[in-house]
Every structure is written in structure tokens, then in C-alpha cells.
């Protein structure tokens, strides 16, 4: 045999087996691209600039290893399909006089081609995708985000080394299989009957219980901060339950259906159910994977996108006015003096103030117990769940700002709750009992309180006398950690960005100069960092989401196609025994439909169950706009489902073509 024979034969083999090889090559390219992207994201210098950089970087580098494991398993798995298909061909070559080492040599060349195509294609695709995604998202959020486009030499190097090892191992495995098999076995391969899977009732019930308990936990969790662990347990339970239900539950259900003679022996159900039992045996884990991945993708994208879209809302909750000064000066007079200085600065710098508010407040934390709020120094901080901020504001300030004319009698209050409702007619604190005259749906903004993760009750009391009384009681209870009165001064302006920026700098200089106690914030200044932070999260969310979707879709596509070849024979027999084309088509449709949409439906249920919890977590980020989150989740699900349907149609078509020759 001359030198060029094996490379040529290998190239020819790939070309001749293009039907099975092309999906495999695409899978290789995709896997390489995904790995590269995750790796390069984890090395992206922009990560360091993001809030929570440590955690993010850690998560991303963990993520790249998970992706590596995933890629390894996935490529082995897809390759085993390919080899199974081709064993017959090997057998023929072997019988025709090619020695096993010649076969191995051919396979070595084929592996080399696959490695080259996979690596080059994958890296190009990875870098291109990285760039495209970056451009699209930057455009979408209209600003620079912390994560820039970045070609990482180190990531390329890691990718190349990793995949050369993976492909080499795959080649070794193939060579081993060729080596141990004899030609007759090779020829017959693929005709061995597969055993019917056993019903594992215990596992099915356990899976059901896991999902049930997980759902229950997720739905009943009240405070996301204290119950993060509970929620985590719920997530783990649901994941485990999903795997169990897909593997054992599906088969148990199908067998139950098969026992029902009246249902089973119908043209429509007969072939589908028996087919599905085998299909689930091979696919359950893959489908559960898809389900879990889809759920993660949906949660990730819908929460990050609603945060992105709700950024203005969040910004307004956190920064109620364009400029805000929180004074800790202790007395009204000294605070007034600071505020007057700032007003002077406004005039001096010619800043046009459109609106301003000013109020006095007293805030301290308490432990909630029904309608009573206990204020003690030793109050156990362990009961995080019931910690509540109480914010008191005199009626005069409230009326002045809101432009209302509310009147309060002795012992009456107005109440606004920011995260958790207060459902009692009377509010008790210290020895006082206040009748809740009215519940408010809007309140003076207070960003510092909003930034605090605990629940807050905003209480309007009758007058300053009442405020002072509360202050004294608080002082007695909390002694050295007691809070002073605080003074809030916020104002809005219609000035441009530059002017605001200049004013903010001048104001901060002035305050430092005067030795001001307290803090000052500018919404404009904060917006830039908000966009950076949330934009980065959004970018990660969308990027990983799209990546996972593509991976998911490829898995399904590949599975369907490779199964098509297995099913071909089955449907041929059915047609010989008298099944019409239409009936074959209907049976295929119902099976493919189930396999396809089972994970999607399950993912939808998971997302729905996670909904209350996620919206509470978002509330921690000051995103109270639940309807926005609902809309985001809905849109994400729809987009996802549409992509899914598209792939389904494509797959069903190809699948049918294979099955009906």
C-alpha cells in the first residue's frame, strides 16, 4: 500500500459517511467553541471590575471545568454512536483483507481530520460568537459593559491542548474496540436486541417526592436572605427529582399506560408507547440534562434581563432623587446649615433645581413578632427573618412633601411596608400602641433604607413630640447603639450629564471641607456603575444562556438523527405488516414530540415553581416590579419555545427522511 493511501481512504470515509459525520463534526465544532468561550470569559480581565468579582471569577473558572467534563462525556458519547454505525463497514474492510492495524491507521487519520476541523472551526466560531454577542449586547443596553471583547491566548492554548487529549482518547477507545472485535462480530454489530428496561417504582416515587418537596420549599420560602439554604436544598431536590422522574418515572408511567389494554391497543398509542419505553431508556438522562439546563437558562436570562430592563426602577428606588444628602449631624439646625450651604452652591453653580424634598426621620431596627416590634439591645440577630427596620417620619414633613392634608389623632399612624405586608390593625412598639389609620402605597424615597436587605416599615406619626418620645424610648432600649434623628435632603434637576457631574464633585468637595457627618449620593453618578454591574451580569446571563441553548439543541438534534437510523428498520417492518405512510408519520410525530417537549414542559414547571423565590431575590436588588419579571420570564420562555419548535420541525423532517428512506 502506498503512502497516500490511508489519508485518502480516511478522507473518503468521512465524505461517504457524511450523514453521520456532519452532525458529529458540528458537535465537535460547537463543543470546542463553547469550551473556548467559557474559558476565555473566565479569563476576561473585565471580570475583575465587576461587583463580586471574586465570586464571579471563581464561578466562571469552576464553570469552565464543568464545561470540560461535559465536553469530554458528550464527545465520547456522540463518537460511540458514530462507531456503532460504522462497525459493519469495519467488518467488511476487515474481511476484505485490511488488517486491524490498517483499520486503526485509517481511524487515526480520520481522528486527525476531525481534530483539525473541530479545533479550527470551533476556535473561529468561538471567537466570532464572542465578538457578535458582545456587540449585540453592548448595543442592546446602550453602554459600555464591564466585560469587553477579548481574544485570550491562554484560553486558545488550553482549548487546543484539552481537545487534542480528548480526541486522542476517543481514538484510543475506537482502536481498542476494533482490536478486540472479530470481523463477524463487527458485521453483526447493531443487530443485537435491546432489553426492555425494568420498572423502578421506588425511584419513580422518590423522584416524585423530591420534586414535590422541592416545589413546596421553593413556594413557601418567605425571606430569601435567611432561607437561601432552604432554597438551595429545594433546587438540589428538584434536580435530583428531575433525573429520577425522567429515568424511572417516565418508564413507570409508560408501563402503566401499557397495562391499560383499552388505551394501549389503539393504533395511535400502540407503537408510540412501546417505542417510547425504549427511547426513554436511552434518552432519559439526556432529556433530564436538557430540562435542567433549560431551567437554568430560563431563570438566568429572565432574571438578568428583568434586572436590566428594571434598572431605572431600581435606580429610582435606590436613589429617590437626582442628588441626596443624608445628614447625621444630630440636630435640625446643623443639618439645615449644611443644606443651606448646598443651596448656595446650587445658586453659585447655576444648577436649576426642579424639585426638592426635606424631612426628618428616625430609623432603628427591631424584631418583628406578630403585630409587636421588639426593640432590645440584645435582640437576637439570629432571627434574621423577622428583623424589621422601623422608620418614623413626622406628619408635617410627610404632608409637606406629598402635598397631602392627612390628619392624625393621638395614637394614630400612616403605614407603608416595602417588602413584607403588615396585616394587623394595631402596631405595637415599646409600650405604645398605634392604630393604623391608613396604609400607603407610596412613600418618600429613602435609598439607604432601600439598600438594606431587611424588611422596612415606614411609619408616619402625629408630630415631632411623638418622634422625640420614640427617640427617648429607643435610646433607653439600645443605649450606645441607639440612632439619632436623621435629616434627608433630596433634589432633582434638569441639568445635563456634565453639569450634574461637575456639581456632584463640587458638592462633595464642599461637604468634606465642612467636615460634614453623613453621606451624599448622585443618581447620575450611580447609573454608570449600575450599567456596568447589571450589564455585566446581563451579558453573562444571555451569553451562557444562548450557549447552553445551542448545546441543548445540538444534543437533541444529534440524538434524533442517530435514533432515526435505529428506528428505520422498525418502521420498515411496520410498513411491511400493513402500516401506512400516514400512520408511520403520525407515530413518529407523537414520539418525537414527546421526547422534544417533555424537557421544555418540565422546565416551564420548574421556572414557575422558582418564580416566587426568584422574585423575592430580585426584590433584594430593589426590583419590586413583579409584573416586569413576569413579562421577562414569559418572553424568555416564548423565545426559547419558538427556537425549540423550529429545531423540532427541522429535526422531525430529517428524521422522517431517514426513516422512510
Amino acid at each position, binding site marked *: 500500500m502506498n503512502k497516500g493511501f490511508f489519508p485518502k481512504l480516511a478522507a473518503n470515509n468521512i465524505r461517504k459517511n457524511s450523514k453521520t459525520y456532519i452532525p458529529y463534526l458540528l458537535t465537535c465544532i460547537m463543543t470546542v467553541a463553547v469550551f473556548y468561550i467559557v474559558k476565555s470569559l473566565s479569563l476576561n480581565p473585565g471580570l475583575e471590575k465587576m461587583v463580586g468579582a471574586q465570586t464571579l471569577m471563581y464561578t466562571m473558572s469552576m464553570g469552565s471545568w464543568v464545561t470540560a467534563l461535559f465536553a469530554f462525556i458528550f464527545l465520547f458519547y456522540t463518537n460511540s454512536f458514530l462507531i456503532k454505525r460504522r462497525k459493519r463497514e469495519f467488518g467488511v474492510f476487515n474481511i476484505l483483507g485490511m488488517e486491524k492495524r490498517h483499520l486503526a491507521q485509517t481511524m487515526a487519520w480520520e481522528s486527525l481530520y476531525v481534530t483539525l476541523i473541530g479545533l479550527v472551526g470551533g476556535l473561529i466560531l468561538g471567537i466570532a460568537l464572542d465578538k457578535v454577542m458582545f456587540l449585540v449586547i453592548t448595543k442592546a443596553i446602550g453602554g459600555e459593559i464591564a466585560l469587553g471583547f477579548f481574544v485570550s491566548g491562554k484560553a486558545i492554548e488550553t482549548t487546543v491542548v484539552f481537545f487534542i487529549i480528548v480526541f486522542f482518547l476517543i481514538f484510543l477507545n475506537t482502536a481498542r474496540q476494533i482490536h478486540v472485535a472479530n470481523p463477524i462480530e463487527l458485521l453483526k454489530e447493531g443487530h443485537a436486541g435491546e432489553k426492555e428496561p425494568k420498572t423502578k417504582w421506588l425511584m419513580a416515587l422518590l423522584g416524585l417526592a423530591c420534586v414535590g418537596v422541592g416545589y413546596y420549599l421553593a413556594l413557601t420560602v418567605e425571606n430569601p436572605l435567611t432561607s437561601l439554604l432552604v432554597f438551595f436544598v429545594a433546587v438540589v431536590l428538584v434536580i435530583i427529582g428531575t433525573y429520577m422522574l425522567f429515568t424511572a418515572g417516565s418508564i413507570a408511567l409508560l408501563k402503566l399506560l401499557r397495562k391499560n389494554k383499552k388505551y394501549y391497543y389503539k*393504533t395511535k398509542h400502540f407503537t408510540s408507547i412501546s417505542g417510547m419505553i*425504549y427511547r426513554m431508556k436511552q434518552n432519559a438522562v439526556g432529556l433530564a440534562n436538557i430540562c435542567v439546563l433549560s431551567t437554568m437558562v430560563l431563570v438566568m436570562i429572565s432574571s438578568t434581563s428583568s434586572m436590566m430592563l428594571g434598572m431605572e426602577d431600581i435606580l429610582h428606588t435606590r436613589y429617590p432623587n437626582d442628588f441626596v444628602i443624608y445628614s447625621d449631624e444630630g440636630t435640625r439646625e446643623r443639618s439645615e446649615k449644611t443644606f443651606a450651604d448646598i443651596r448656595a452652591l446650587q445658586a453659585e453653580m447655576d444648577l436649576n433645581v426642579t424639585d426638592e424634598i426635606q424631612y426628618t426621620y428616625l430609623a432603628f431596627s427591631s424584631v418583628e413578632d406578630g403585630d409587636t416590634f421588639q426593640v432590645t439591645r440584645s435582640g437576637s440577630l439570629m432571627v434574621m427573618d423577622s428583623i424589621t427596620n422601623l422608620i418614623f417620619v413626622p406628619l408635617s414633613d410627610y404632608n409637606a412633601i406629598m402635598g397631602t392634608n392627612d390628619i392624625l389623632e393621638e395614637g394614630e399612624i400612616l403605614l407603608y411596608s416595602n417588602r413584607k405586608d403588615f396585616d394587623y390593625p394595631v402596631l405595637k412598639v415599646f409600650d405604645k400602641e398605634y392604630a393604623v389609620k391608613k396604609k400607603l402605597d407610596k412613600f418618600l424615597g429613602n435609598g439607604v433604607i432601600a439598600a438594606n436587605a431587611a424588611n422596612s416599615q415606614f411609619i408616619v406619626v402625629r408630630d415631632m413630640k411623638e418622634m422625640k418620645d420614640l427617640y427617648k424610648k429607643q435610646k433607653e432600649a439600645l443605649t450606645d447603639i441607639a440612632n439619632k434623628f436623621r435629616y434627608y435632603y433630596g433634589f432633582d434637576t434638569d441639568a445635563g450629564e456634565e453639569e450634574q457631574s461637575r456639581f456632584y464633585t463640587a458638592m462633595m468637595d464642599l461637604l468634606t471641607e465642612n467636615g460634614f457627618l453623613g453621606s451624599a449620593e448622585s443618581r447620575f453618578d450611580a447609573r454608570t456603575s449600575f450599567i456596568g454591574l447589571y450589564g455585566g451580569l446581563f451579558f453573562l446571563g444571555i451569553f451562557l444562556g444562548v450557549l447552553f441553548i445551542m448545546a441543548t439543541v445540538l444534543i437533541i438534534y444529534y440524538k434524533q438523527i442517530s435514533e432515526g437510523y435505529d428506528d428505520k428498520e422498525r418502521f420498515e417492518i411496520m410498513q411491511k405488516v400493513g402500516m401506512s405512510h400516514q400512520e408511520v408519520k403520525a407515530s413518529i410525530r407523537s414520539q418525537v414530540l414527546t421526547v422534544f417537549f417533555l424537557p421544555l414542559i418540565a422546565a416551564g414547571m420548574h421556572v414557575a415553581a422558582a418564580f416566587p423565590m426568584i422574585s423575592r431575590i430580585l426584590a433584594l436588588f430593589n426590583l419590586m416590579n413583579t409584573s416586569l419579571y413576569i413579562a421577562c420570564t414569559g418572553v424568555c420562555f416564548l423565545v426559547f419555545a419558538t427556537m425549540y419548535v423550529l429545531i423540532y420541525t427541522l429535526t422531525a423532517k430529517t428524521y422522517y427522511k431517514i426513516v422512510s428512506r
Partner: protein
Amino acid sequence: MAILEAKGVQKIYTTRFDGNQVQALSNVSFTVEQGEYVAIMGESGSGKTTLLNILAALDKPTAGEVLLEGRRLASVKEREISAFRRDNLGFVFQDFNLLDTFTLKDNIFLPLVLAGKSYKEMNRRLQPIAKKLGISELLAKYPYEVSGGQKQRAAVARALVAEPKLVLADEPTGALDSKSTDDLLRIFNEINRDGQTILMVTHSAKAASHAGRVLFIKDGEVFHQIYRGNSSNEQMYQKISDILTLLATGGDRHE
């Protein structure tokens, strides 16, 4: 009454490669009477399989026609052809064609389920057939759990369960050992005695020697046919062997 009639059936294939025309069947005419057991013999490439495909309405003849109970197969609409096949024809294949995903029972039920029969009706039909074929005990097993002979008996049960007018068997003994072959041929004789019409394509002289009439096909035509008359299986076998020798040595056509 003739249950099956083939009149001047011709089949010409055009090869995909160079457009050459290959004649598989040139002119085949014969009839099968109700209750007959007919074997068609011929060497590889004689056009046996093509003929069987045409009789099974899986393929269409280039010229001539096939009538089942006086109805022209060509007149059956494309949409109804599957239903027509499963109502009128039962198939037994060389490689059984049982589905691995079904138990033997469900494999046998397949044509009935496709025809929309109720479970009770299916069961009523299955019991006597399973008993006759000796597979009552095996019904719950899967094809990969039973022997080749048992598989073929299940396949015969599947062919019979729809109560077809005609059973078409394509090399039914081809994949069986000699004992299973004997069993199967005995079963064919029994069901034929019960009135089932059978048409079998084979190149096994032994299998053909059980039939009531044997047609020999050569070069796409019916070359010769012999009737059993009162001969025993052994005498029949001898006759068939003689004809096959003649065929192999290229004798002229004689009736």
C-alpha cells in the same frame, strides 16, 4: 374460484446508473385457487422476489395485472393500499421481521391494532392460533428471548391473526434449522388443511415438496409447474429435484 390471478405480469427496471433496462419478469401468468398451497421456486435472480413484491402490492408491474378475488391491485388507491394489504394479505418473512420493542403477543396484535380492533376481539382471535402454533406459553416473551423457530411461528401467527385471504411467505424456512423447518412446514400443511390459501416463495426443494403445486420460474417466466396429485412428500421432493436438475442443465421448456 381463483383467489389470485396474475396475467402477463412484466417488470422492467431502469438502472439508476446508466439508464439501462433490466427485465426482471417478462411474462408471468398463473392463478391460485381458494384453499391452494402453492410454492414458487427459482434460483437467485430468477425474479422470485420481484414477483412476490408485485403480488403483495409493494411494487407495481410494468405491464400485465394482478387480481385478488377479481379486484385489480392497480385499482386500489395509494391511500388505501396499506389497509388493503393488512386486510387481505398475511406475510411471513425469511428474517421474521418481528419488532424488538414488542412482546410476541403485541407483535401478533400489530395488524389488528392497526385495523382498529378491540382488545377483546384481538384476544379471541389470538387464543386458538397461538394454541395451534404452540406458542401460548411464549406470548409474554420478547423476540430476543426466544429461538428462531419460535420467532417464525409468532410471525406466522401474526400473518394469520388478521384472517387474510392469502398468506404470502418469502423463504420462510431460510433462517431456520432443520427441526424448526420441519415444524414450520407441518404447521403450513395444517393451516392449509384448515382452508388457508398459501403462496410460498422458496428455493428449498424440501420446503416446496410440502406444497400442493410447485411453479418454477426461470428468466422471468413460469418455466414449468408440477402438481402433487397423490404423491407423498418424498415423491414430490424427487420430482422437484428432477426439475431443478433440468433447470440447472438448461433444459427446454415443457409442460
